[in-house]
């Protein structure tokens, strides 16, 4: 098989779904817009033609019940990939996902499980305002029985979706429409990116930047800007929010002594806070020191504004990461 074939983000997901459905009759896709040529980008292109309406189910607007339907089908031997075109719609689904699927195995004393994938797409910008912008990974990561993955590129999107579908427990798979234009080499065969394994994207010695989802490409841009000024940063993409690959992060922080965490979600009580807490705890117990306080690059504690003038200030980009790195270096 050719090894240098390139795919865009959405088509990498599309390929993963197609190959998973081809290789396992238990896998099916359910959600809003899965038969639409535009609603969920190009992620579901052609699936309904290939697998029929029985395995590609476009649903009424009923997130609460449909999420329960997905969970129930998983208990009964199927492997649903339930799609939500926006995370904002997942608030209606929280009962089925958190009260239900996430707790099920434990409540059953290990005697039952829910191998479902809940796949939500972060979709924001474009003056869509507060109810069409939210990134709520922290809410899912907070629930003990959920794994949460957030790929930042096509290769990881395909591999993590495969791992998520094959996992014996519920996995929340969150991607971002802002990443759908990215293109990179994606193997044509089915492969797994292991859940819980982060990726070192760039070696550096001055500071560590842990970036999540759409801020990963921004962190790499920041690295280039900083390199021109002689500042050398290490960039890590955890890829999985839960469980976090702490050995990777801690190893890097030990080396650089400085940490910036970039996450496109509200700054308080978020994944970034959790990472910071774990690093501080580790630093304390392992008696090595940070050279500067940890910096976070997040969204302000404010709902998403509509106006483009406010949006521009609301969403951090490479520029804010550059500034945060410099701050840790007292520059």
């Amino acid at each position, binding site marked *: 098989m050719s090894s240098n074939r390139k795919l865009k983000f959405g088509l990498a997901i599309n390929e993963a779904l197609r190959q998973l459905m081809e290789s396992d009759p238990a896998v099916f896709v359910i959600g809003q817009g899965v038969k639409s040529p535009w609603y969920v980008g190009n992620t579901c292109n052609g699936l309904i033609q290939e697998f029929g309406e029985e395995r590609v189910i476009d649903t009424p607007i009923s997130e609460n019940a449909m999420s329960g339907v997905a969970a129930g089908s998983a208990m009964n031997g199927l492997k649903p990939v339930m799609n939500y075109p926006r995370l904002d719609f997942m608030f*209606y689904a929280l009962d089925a996902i958190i009260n239900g699927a996430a707790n099920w195995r434990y409540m059953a004393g290990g005697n039952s499980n829910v191998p479902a994938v809940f796949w939500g797409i972060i979709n924001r910008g474009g003056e869509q305002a507060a109810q069409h912008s939210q990134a709520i990974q922290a809410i899912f990561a907070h629930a003990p029985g959920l794994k949460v993955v957030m790929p930042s590129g096509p290769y990881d999107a395909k591999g993590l979706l495969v791992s998520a579908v094959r996992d014996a427990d519920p996995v929340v798979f969150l991607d971002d429409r802002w990443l759908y234009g990215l293109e990179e080499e994606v193997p044509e065969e089915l492969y797994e990116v292991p859940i819980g394994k982060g990726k070192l994207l760039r070696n550096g010695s001055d500071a560590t930047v842990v970036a999540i989802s759409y801020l990963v490409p921004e962190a790499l841009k920041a690295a280039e800007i900083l390199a021109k000024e002689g500042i050398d940063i290490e960039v890590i993409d955890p890829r999985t929010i839960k469980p976090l690959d702490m050995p990777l992060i801690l190893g890097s922080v030990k080396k650089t002594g400085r940490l910036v965490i970039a996450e496109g979600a509200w700054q308080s009580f978020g994944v970034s806070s959790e990472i910071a807490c774990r690093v501080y705890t580790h630093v304390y117990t392992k008696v090595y020191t940070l050279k500067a306080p940890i910096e976070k690059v997040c969204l302000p504690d404010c709902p998403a504004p509509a106006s483009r003038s406010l949006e521009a200030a609301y969403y951090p980009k490479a520029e804010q990461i550059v500034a945060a790195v410099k701050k840790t270096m007292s520059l």
Partner: protein
Amino acid sequence: MEKSFLENLYRKMLTIRLAEECLIDPILKGEVKTPCHLYTGQEASAVGVCAALESGDQVFSNHRGHGHYLAKGGDLNRMLAEIYTKETGCSRGRGGSMHLMARDCNFMGSAPIISQTVAMAVGAALADSIKKNGQIAATFFGDGAAGEGIIYESLNFAALKCLPVIFVCENNLYSTHLHIRECRPGIPLYKIAEPFGIAAAQVGGNDILKVYEAAKIAAKHCRAGLGPYFIESLTYRMRGHVGPDDNIQGQHTDIRPQAEVDEWRAKDPVMRFEKYLLENKIFDKDELETVKQEITEKVKKAQEYAIDSPRPVVSDLQKHVFE
């Protein structure tokens, strides 16, 4: 019905139509970015219902809310300024097209999370009922919204507590890309009120006078303390689900058959009412023309106001999160 009343209905419908249509070009040019779910084609629904309400009555709306806002008496300048996401907008540019508010005329707000505001309208009706103020609430939602459990929970509670709320389901046959037959069994939508013992009616939603008559009955019913009322208004959107037209834009594929679109175009509620006014000699052609010019001018001025207004400043980003 008095001429002035009919004139007012016509003015309102035309204002909505022209306000929606003035957005087409700016949307295509990217000057208006906030997602606009245009109300063109459904004007009779909002205007007919709101004409049966008092100014103290509360109205809640959904993502397709421009028409509801204007019908309830929301200020045109401030609506267009909001859609241009300016500080002078009715939500100060924070909300955009999908979050219009006008507390001065008891337009309580619109929001795109499907069926969210339906329960809020029931809450407003609960307050009316506790305060015994003689006011009622109304809530607009689509056929697609009837997929959400919250609709049925709201119907149940409203019936249980005999609350003065009108549920207005605007059935335009589509929920984004799905025809209603792909979303629900083929039972008429208004029948969802039946198991709760809620009085319900189905009405041709492109006939302003029919909608008005139905809403008048509904409002009277609510105000008499007889509990909630459900209206299914059969209508059709003449633009895309979001933006001008899924077909024309070429990015989206609108799944609606052209013959169906044409059939409904012939039932255009504004043209239909114009015809009625002329045929019944309530207006002559010149009078109508004068009104048209007046409203065209008003919309033009409002759009200029919106364009000329300043955007919110970044230092105010976190203003309005709390008191």
